[in-house]
Every structure is written in C-alpha cells, then in structure tokens.
C-alpha cells in the first residue's frame, strides 16, 4: 500500500473543454489541474455549470459531439486525450470506470441486468457467457442487492433507483478498476438510500483499494467521504486541499458561501385559532384497475387515508421518500387526481368536482411543480406563461391591467420585467422556478401546493428560492403545502410536518417537535441520513 500511494493514478493537467455552439464557442472548463493518488478519495465540488462533470466526460472520451478538450489527462502516464479509440476502450470500463447521476436511465431498459453486467466482463476480460454470468452474480452479491439470482434476470424498470445504482456500482467494479469516477451518484436518490450507497462505496473501497473520484454539488457528502477536495466554479479551480482544511478553514468566499448554503431559519407556528382553509379527511388515492375477467388486480393505494387541516398562513411540510405518496397527496388535495374522502376548501366540498366545477377554485388553489425544465411550455414567452392563468380566471382584464399584473408578479419573485418577452430556455433552473412561482402568485391564491420546488436546484439557489417563498408568504398571506424529500428545506420552511411512508402518515406534529424528538424509528433514520451522514459512514467503516 505504501509504495502505491506515491504514484498518481490520474493526473489532469491544465484541461480545457470547449463547446462549439450556435452562439460561438463556450469555454466550460478553462484550465484545471488535479490528481488522484492510488487508494485516495478525491471530491470535485461545484454548482451546476461549474464544469466539474465535463472534465470527467472529456477524460473518458464522452464529450458531446460539439465538445473538444485540450491539455492532458494521464492515467498512469498515458494521455487519454490523445489515445486511439481502441486503446481508450481497453482502459474504459476496465481500469477506469464510471457511475452516473441518473440511475433510472443509465442502464439499457431493453436488456436484462445480467446481460448488461456481463458485457464489460466479456469485452475486457474475455470471459465466456457462463463464466461472466457467474461473476455477475458475485458482483451483485458484493453490492448487497437482495435476491441477486432473480435480479440477474430482471429488467432495469423492475428495480428501484437505489438498486439500479448498486447495479451500476457492480458494473464499475467488474474488472477490478484502479479508479472509479462517481458523477453525482446519489443526487437522484432518497437520503436514506444515499447513505446506503455511500456506505457501500466506502466499504468497497476499503476492501478493494481503488481510488474514487467523486463529483458532487453536495458538500455534506464530501465531508463524510473524501480525503481531499477540489472546489470548482465557472470552469476554474477555486480552491483545493484536504477535506478538514476546506471545511475548517475555507480560503475563498465562494467555498464559504457553499458551506453556508445549507438552508437556515425556521417558521413560527400560526396563531391559535387561525381559520382552516383546506381540509382533507381520510383522503385515499388508488391507481390501477381491480381484477377483471382477463386481467390481474393492478390496484395500488398511493395515499391511504390521510387527514390534514391547513390553517391560514401555515406551511405544512410533507416529507417522505420517493414512492411514499406525498406528491399524490398534494395532487389529490387540489383535485388534480380523483380521490376518495372529504376535501373541503373554505367550507365548500371540492372532492369529486369535475374540471368545470373545480375551475372557480383553481385561482385560489395553485401548484408549483418540481421540474423547472418540464413544467414551462418552451414555446411561450415568460410573459405569456405568467399571464395564462389570468386569461382563464380574469378574462375581462384589459391588456394594460394584465401587463401590469405580470410585471408585478415578476417583480414579486425577483425577476426583471424585461424578462417577459424571453423564452424559458434562456433561464437557469432557479430563474425558471421563480417563473413557475410567479405564474402561481399572479392569481393571488390562498393556497399553493409546492411539490419539491427546490429539489432540482443548487443549494445556493435553493436558499434564494426559500427566501422568496418566505417573503411572498408574509406579503400575500399565503398558506403552503410543501412537499419535499429534503429535510433541511422542510425544516426551514414549515411550521408543521407530516412524515409519510407507503401512503400513510407515520408521524406528524410541529416542526421543532418532529426534528428534535422524532418518535418513530423511520423518522429517526431519515434525520440521521440527512443530518448525520458522517457519523453514519464512520460507524460503518469503523
């Protein structure tokens, strides 16, 4: 071990990545050098657009067609950038392997897990199908997938995100690599699954001794996981050093900002006796169809008898892992999905109303969705998007008045009025989420259901959106139902929290109570994975 540590496995020397676009060349990476020693875990941290992923893409020869890389990326002395494709293919997947951010799409949906796992084994190791399958089974056991024999024959869509990421790790380990590049491997996963995957990686590294290059935007992971850290910003290296030094004594404002970007503050509970705006009694949502003459029973109860009362000015945080039914609950409360049980808005029963019946309540009950990229029509200008609700709910508005309202809404969410004529694709994720919020607040609703509105955003941007949501809540007396898997954000925004699991509420109460004295083991696990990753990983390693 000692002699190995002296030699870098990977050496990146003044790398530059440029993309040719219709608007001229874009310099995504502008001269960055870094190295990874044998057995070391190195983290590259930066917000979206910092170029951290593009360095790895360039190193692995995976840049998009319009991208090119200059400089050098040396694997044990061999420059990967100038290597012939065939020689590069001998290294990729064998000595250097990669796992990606998107466990849902990184595996080919059309082939069984086993068939995909054996491909690199057969190509690089020259194994027979039978030998490769045996090795694949070993690998699945290594990454601790339950029921590995059956999983070999399973298709990716039959597995959860966490399981798929384990399969990716198995594939990465197949040929005993020297270096594993992990590009945001846990970003798309729930906190508890994230903790499990990180535990697994740490454990496997201790056992197998490969180096890990970890790319992430999430500093909390880095602190628990990495030996050294590189901080990137806008294509340049901002700061580098051992993890303790970066966390204990950051040298640049940017790093300090990243460290301080954890959402903070809390929300005071609403006054006793505040009126109830929206109330749900024993709400149930079922998908699928019961067994028929020729078909199996495919029913799935996503929300199983949940009751809640949202008071004026209140924010109810609904937390839970993916599949817990929290988004379904939010949609059912606004009758965007058919549901059973009573839903009452300001004394009127709105459950069972059809689209026309719901229309008069829609301006009071608004929703903001998670995906700031998918939820805005790419063919409408920002002004049109924000004004669209007005044309339905206040059709008699004069053009001037409508324009004034749009301007006000844009101002409310901290955007410039001049943005109204631009299209969504010209904006960053954070700005798009502001547009989505502007579209909701322009109707002066009573209630906004926010479905993971900050989950796709960088921490620093998240913080701004949280501030914005706080400000307009006070300004316009809004009530929120805030759905999120991100406990830190929920703690900052909500005064009442409901913890959901498998369609039911396992625990609920005032925010401080849930966070300080969680009553159930499930909530405690969630808290620990979210706030105490380091001790969790140390415990596992020690």
């Amino acid at each position, binding site marked *: 071990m000692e002699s190995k540590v002296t030699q870098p496995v990977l050496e990146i020397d003044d790398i530059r990545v440029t993309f040719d676009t219709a608007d001229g060349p874009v310099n995504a990476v502008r001269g960055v050098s870094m190295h990874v020693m044998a057995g070391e875990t190195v983290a590259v941290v930066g917000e979206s657009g910092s170029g951290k992923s593009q360095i790895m893409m360039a190193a*692995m*020869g*995976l840049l998009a*067609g319009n991208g090119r890389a200059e400089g050098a990326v040396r694997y044990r002395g061999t420059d990967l950038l100038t290597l012939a*494709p065939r020689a*590069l*293919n*001998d*290294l*990729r*997947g*064998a000595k250097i*392997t*990669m796992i*990606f951010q*998107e466990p849902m*799409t*990184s*595996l*080919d*949906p*059309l*082939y069984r897990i086993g068939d995909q796992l054996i*491909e*690199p084994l057969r*190509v*690089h190791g020259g194994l027979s199908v039978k030998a490769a399958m045996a090795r694949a089974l070993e690998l699945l056991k290594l990454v601790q997938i339950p029921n590995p024999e059956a999983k070999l024959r399973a*298709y990716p*869509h039959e597995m959860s995100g966490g399981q798929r990421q384990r399969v*990716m790790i198995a*594939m990465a380990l197949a040929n005993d690599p020297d270096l594993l590049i992990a590009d945001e491997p846990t970003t798309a996963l729930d906190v508890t699954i994230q903790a499990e995957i990180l535990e697994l990686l740490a454990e496997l590294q201790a056992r197998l001794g490969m180096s890990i290059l970890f790319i992430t935007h999430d500093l909390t992971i880095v602190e628990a996981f990495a030996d050294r850290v590189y901080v990137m910003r806008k294509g340049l290296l901002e700061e580098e050093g051992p993890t303790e030094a970066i966390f204990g004594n950051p040298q640049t404002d940017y790093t300090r900002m990243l460290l301080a970007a954890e959402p903070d503050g809390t929300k005071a509970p609403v006054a006793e006796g505040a009126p109830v705006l929206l109330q749900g009694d024993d709400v149930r949502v079922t998908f699928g169809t019961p067994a028929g003459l*020729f078909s*199996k029973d495919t029913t799935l109860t996503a929300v199983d008898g949940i009751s809640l009362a949202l008071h004026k000015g209140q924010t109810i945080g609904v937390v839970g892992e993916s599949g817990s039914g929290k988004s379904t609950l939010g949609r059912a409360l606004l009758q965007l999905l058919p549901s059973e049980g009573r839903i009452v808005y300001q004394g009127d029963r709105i459950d069972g109303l059809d689209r026309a019946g719901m229309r008069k309540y829609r301006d009071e009950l608004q929703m903001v969705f998670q995906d700031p990229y998918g939820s805005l029509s790419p063919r409408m200008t920002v002004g049109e998007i924000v004004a669209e609700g007005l044309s339905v709910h206040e059709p008699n508005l004069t053009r001037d008045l409508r324009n004034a309202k749009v301007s006000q809404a844009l101002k409310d969410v901290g955007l410039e009025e001049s943005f109204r004529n631009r299209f969504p694709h010209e904006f960053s994720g954070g700005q798009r989420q502001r547009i989505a919020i502007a579209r909701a607040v322009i109707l002066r609703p009573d209630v906004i259901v926010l479905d993971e509105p900050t989950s796709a955003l960088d921490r620093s941007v998240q913080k701004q959106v949280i501030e914005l949501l706080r400000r307009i809540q006070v300004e316009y007396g809004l009530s929120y139902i805030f759905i999120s898997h991100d406990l830190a954000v929920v703690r900052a925004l909500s005064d009442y929290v409901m913890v959901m699991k498998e369609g039911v509420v396992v625990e609920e109460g005032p925010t401080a109570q849930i966070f300080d004295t969680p009553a159930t083991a499930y909530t405690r696990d969630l808290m620990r994975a979210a706030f105490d990753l380091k001790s969790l990983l140390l415990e596992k390693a020690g």
Partner: protein
Amino acid sequence: MLSYAIRRLLGAIPTLFFIITAAFFMMRLAPGGPFDQERALEATVMANLNATFGLDEPLWKQYVIYLGNLVRGDMGPSFVYRDLKVHQILAIGLPVSIKLGGMALALAMLVGSALGSIAALRQNSAVDYGVIAVATFGITIPNFVVAPVLLLVFALYFDIFPAGGLNGWQSYVLPVIALSLPQIAVVARLIRGAMIEALRSDHVRTARAYGLPTRMIVIKHALRAACLPAISYMGPAAAALLTGSIVVEQIFGIPGIGRYFVQGALNRDYTLVMGTVIVVALFVVIFNLIVDLLYALLDPRVRYD
C-alpha cells in the same frame, strides 16, 4: 402473451362487425346498381336479375342474409364476374397482393433502417443530408409517377425487367420498388430521428464509458431502441401497402386484389366491394396485433401478461 392476443382478436369482432355494417349500407347509398348499363335493360330482365341475386328483398333482409352467409364463409357471388364467388376471387388475388405488399414492407424496413441509421451516425454530414433529401423525394413523389418512370427506364429502355404480368421473380422487382419507395422514406426518417435520440441516451453513454466496441453499441443498444417507432409504423404501413398497391398493380398489370377494389366500386359490385373491405379490415386488425406483440418483444416495459 397468448391470452392477450386472444383478447385482442375477440375485441376486434365488434370493430369488424361495425365496419361490415357501415360498408354494407354505405355501398347501397351510392346511386346506381350492379346491372345499370348505358342503355337501360328491359324492366323484366332487370327484375329477373334482381330476383336471382336477391336484390328484390328489403335491404335489412339482404343484410341479414349477407351476414348469415358470411358467418359460413360465403361472401356471395360477384355481380360482375358472375362465374365466381367473391371469396374465390379473393383467394386468387389476395396471395399475390400479400406477397407484393409483404416484400415491399420487408424491403422498406430493411433499407429504411439501414439508411436511417447511417444518416444518424453521420448526423449533419453530406451523407445525412443526402438521405434526408432522398427520403423527402420518396415521400412527395406519388407512386403513379414513380411506377411509370421505373417501367420506362428499366423495362422499356434498358429491358432489364419485364414491363408487366407475373412471370418469375423478375416481374416483382419493379412493382416492389415502386410500392416500397415512399415507405422506405418514412422508415428512414423515423429511424434516423429515433437513432439520434438513442445515441444520445444515458445508457448508450454508459456503454461507451465501459469501452464496448462501437458496432456493439450501435446495433445492440441504439438500434433496438430506435426500431420501436418504426415498428409502430408497420401497422399503418401494411395497410397502406395493401390498399396502395391498387395503383401499382394496375400499372404493372398484376392480378392482385387492388384491381377488384377499383372495378368493384365502379361497377357497384356490392359483394366484391364488401369482400375487399372485410379483407383489408381484417388485415389491419391482425397487423396491429402483430405490431403490438413485436413491440412487446423488443421492449420489456410494455409486456402483456
């Protein structure tokens, strides 16, 4: 899978029934009848003819009789080709049309996939633009233009292939090409688009990151996904080839069912038209089922249990 197929076929019965009913009555709404000629026949002759073919009965009774016969597999006598029953005519013409259409479909899928894949792999190159140009050309030029040009060049001018009739495999070459050209164009465009998307997908990136050879990535991981939209198109394409063969069959003098479709309609040959409508409807139903099963075979996410 089998129970799904059976369910689908059972589900098609009401559809077919509706099509037969609609076709039956719409046909009778058209002015004129099978025995109208330029000079009207004598009233007694006409009455005799009508009585012979059962056309003097009330319409609803004719309908019931027709359905009854149909269930027994009897499509009734043709009013124009009086020596033959309709199902006998179809038995002669249908195999020819199916052979022609099947070959055209196979050719379209093969050539279209190849062209589309090549264009996608060389996206925005001269090859790509060439394929798109040819594809656009193939879609826009109707086959009643393409077919005579092919005839003129390859049969009359160069005398490589026969100009008409059915004598050996050579006589299939030109009609199959004429028939498949527009379909090749559509398939090539579909495959090109889907292939470009597939090559950019995350799992293809994974395959590249794991050093798999390009040939394996393209054929195993990209093309299979890229085929899916083309497979979906096979249903409408098969229907288009069967009905679109009318023009090509006429031009090349091929005894398929296309000519009966036209002649039957022009002559108000009620039973013949009904027969061809039923055949085409059946064909569409069956082909859509085949397409769905094929789709499920290629994409495990949509398998039917």
